[in-house]
């Protein structure tokens, strides 16, 4: 069965709402409209306007309300309409959502899922294409998860909603309409991927690409193209930025001795810096070259007509691979 990422996410929400009466969806336009990306399509009709609530237009208010709901034992799933429109809720995220369990000595956890469609490549006007993962990944107390495949969209969202900890769930919006042969109905609970495990999407021997979310397909394409240059590239999909799967990542890097990190967000102090730094700390003597990064430039996200230059491309990835000091 061919399923899009949007449909898989929708199925995950639907199944969660069905199985657990404490799950509640809320956000701007999630009800009648079914979300601007249709991820919540049909949920209000099936579960009622209260289980899938159209809120006033105020992101801090939405998340703050969700905090209160979670305090009372519900499992809110909040939709932020676009990456940059989650910033008004930043104080609630950092000062409450991330910290509540800790500040109450473990007595009050907040099982909130914050869904954020993120990243570019969809021709969005300004403020509609930010990659904001580093802000969340640097904030202790949050889990930060981002699926790159249709199956993971379903599975990781189920896991996020089931988690007793808050999860920032970053949905790569340019993969929303990607499709795969996948049937949510056939996924058993045991098959749902846990949060915190990376996945080797392609084995390889020459060098390892470390990536996540919207950049996974680009990396797979680059790995394919690299064969013509004689490189056999491994590709690791991180899936979860926090917790980070040091084990899988380090094993994959040690196996090749060379690595490139790829993401859309600006490079400076991005998550790629963390990955490069920790891989280097842990695999130093296995490395034949420094871990390189292919990322968005250190600029505000560009207007649609220029975004192709900004986004990591197959060419830029291959250029970086070429700089991995092969002649040594």
């Amino acid at each position: 069965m061919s399923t899009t990422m949007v449909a898989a996410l929708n199925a995950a929400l639907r199944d969660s709402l069905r199985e657990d009466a404490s799950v509640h969806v809320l956000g701007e336009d999630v009800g009648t409209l079914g979300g601007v990306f249709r991820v919540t399509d049909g949920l209000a009709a099936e579960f009622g306007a209260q289980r899938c609530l159209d809120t006033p237009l105020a992101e801090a208010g939405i998340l703050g309300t969700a905090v209160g709901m979670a305090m009372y034992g519900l499992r809110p799933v909040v939709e932020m309409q676009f990456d940059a429109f989650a910033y008004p809720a930043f104080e609630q995220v950092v000062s409450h959502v991330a910290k509540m369990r800790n500040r109450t000595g473990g007595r009050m956890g907040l099982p909130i899922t914050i869904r954020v469609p993120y990243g570019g490549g969809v021709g969005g006007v300004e403020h509609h294409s930010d990659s904001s993962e580093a802000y969340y990944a640097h904030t202790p107390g949050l889990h930060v998860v981002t699926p790159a495949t249709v199956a993971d969209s379903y599975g990781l969202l189920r896991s996020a909603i089931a988690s007793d900890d808050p999860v920032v769930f970053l949905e790569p919006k340019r993969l929303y309409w990607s499709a795969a042969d996948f049937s949510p109905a056939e996924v058993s609970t045991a098959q749902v991927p846990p949060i915190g495990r990376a996945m080797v999407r392609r084995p390889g021997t020459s060098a390892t690409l470390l990536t996540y979310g919207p950049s996974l397909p680009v990396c797979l394409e680059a790995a394919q193209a690299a064969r013509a240059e004689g490189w056999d590239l491994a590709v690791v999909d991180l899936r979860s930025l926090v917790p980070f799967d040091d084990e899988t990542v380090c094993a994959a890097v040690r196996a090749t001795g060379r690595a490139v990190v790829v993401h859309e967000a600006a490079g400076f102090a991005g998550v790629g810096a963390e990955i490069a730094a920790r891989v280097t700390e842990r695999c130093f003597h296995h490395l034949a070259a420094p871990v390189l990064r292919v990322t968005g430039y250190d600029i505000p996200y560009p207007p649609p007509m220029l975004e192709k230059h900004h986004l990591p491309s197959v060419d830029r990835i291959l250029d970086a691979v070429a700089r991995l000091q092969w002649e040594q």
Partner: protein
Amino acid sequence: MTVLDDSTAPGLVGPPHSHGPRRDPAPLLPDPEPVRILGTPAAKTFDAELQRDLYRRLVLGRRFNQQATTLTRQGRLAVYPASTGQEACQITAAMVLREVDWLFPSYRDTLAVVARGVRPLDALTLMRGHAHSGYDPYEHRIAPLSTPLATQAPHAVGLAHAARLRAATDPAAAEDLVALALVGDGGTSEGDFHEALNFAGVLGAPVVFLVQNNGYAISVPLASQSAAPSLAHKAVGYGIAGRLVDGNDALAMHSVLSAAVEHARSGRGPVLVEAVTYRLDAHTNADDATRYRSAAEVDAWRARDPLTLLEGHLRAAGLLDDAGVAAAAKAAEVLAGEIRAQFDNPPDPDPDSLFTHVYARPTSQLREQAAELAARLDADADAALAAATDAEDEAR
């Protein structure tokens, strides 16, 4: 048990507590129903030339909305949030401002920007996807269209406050300006809206906030946005004047908005104006409005189309005839043709522009990154040239 006769202990309690004198709320509260002029005696005394002018501008505005929507269908605009049905608000927002004033538009207010004199191509640059903002904010005294909702409202307050500060310290440079911030009904729910109105009230800054209440924030109806008697009732909570006006009545809009602007200009403090209107088109060209509102509702509001209302009134008043209508329509076609011409061969953006304006001077990091991109583009161009030469050679 003895019970106190309060006359026995007056000194104990004294007058009620307060932190300073209390302002009278009455003048700050809006009328219970929106101000209207069309169909009321006040219409008779309304300047006739201004009425005709409003009509011509509304016709141009409507045509602008149509043409921009057509451009989205042709793929020449990435997106367009039309203000069809809200032209009386858009046009009067631009008209009531003097040259010295500043406009702080929201993402739906391209028409107001054009009405204030910006070239359509430049006003639409954001929606075309060529650059973030296509006009010079200082040339036109218009802030960039704000996509994050209500975030530009505090900017309007700060600018208006700054103008007062300058006037106080340097009377020679004094500009008696007003800042007009445009916000939607949905935008009033944001914290930034609240903070802006509060700062304006405390600073007494010459700002007017115009809320175009078109009944929806994308799909969310007003009833899910606010339980207030009217959005104009929010004003009293900031000690500023609240006004409620029929946003589809161009005469009322012009009258209430100019009064608000002059109220602010004269130092009597900020004003919050709520204009009750309706968005006749979908949220944007990408939206399917039938998902959240009925055809009957749209039809009822179409019957209150600001253009139809004004035309009917002007004809009945003998201020407009078929020739006047035709002349206005012709001017609108000229505008549409100009827009199409501007979009015919618009320049392509320069990739180097990605790096040039992040800072006043690029950092060494940005210079490195710009050089990397330039080298890649050169290599691509060389490769393309080589491929073309090869193809030519083969063809020869």
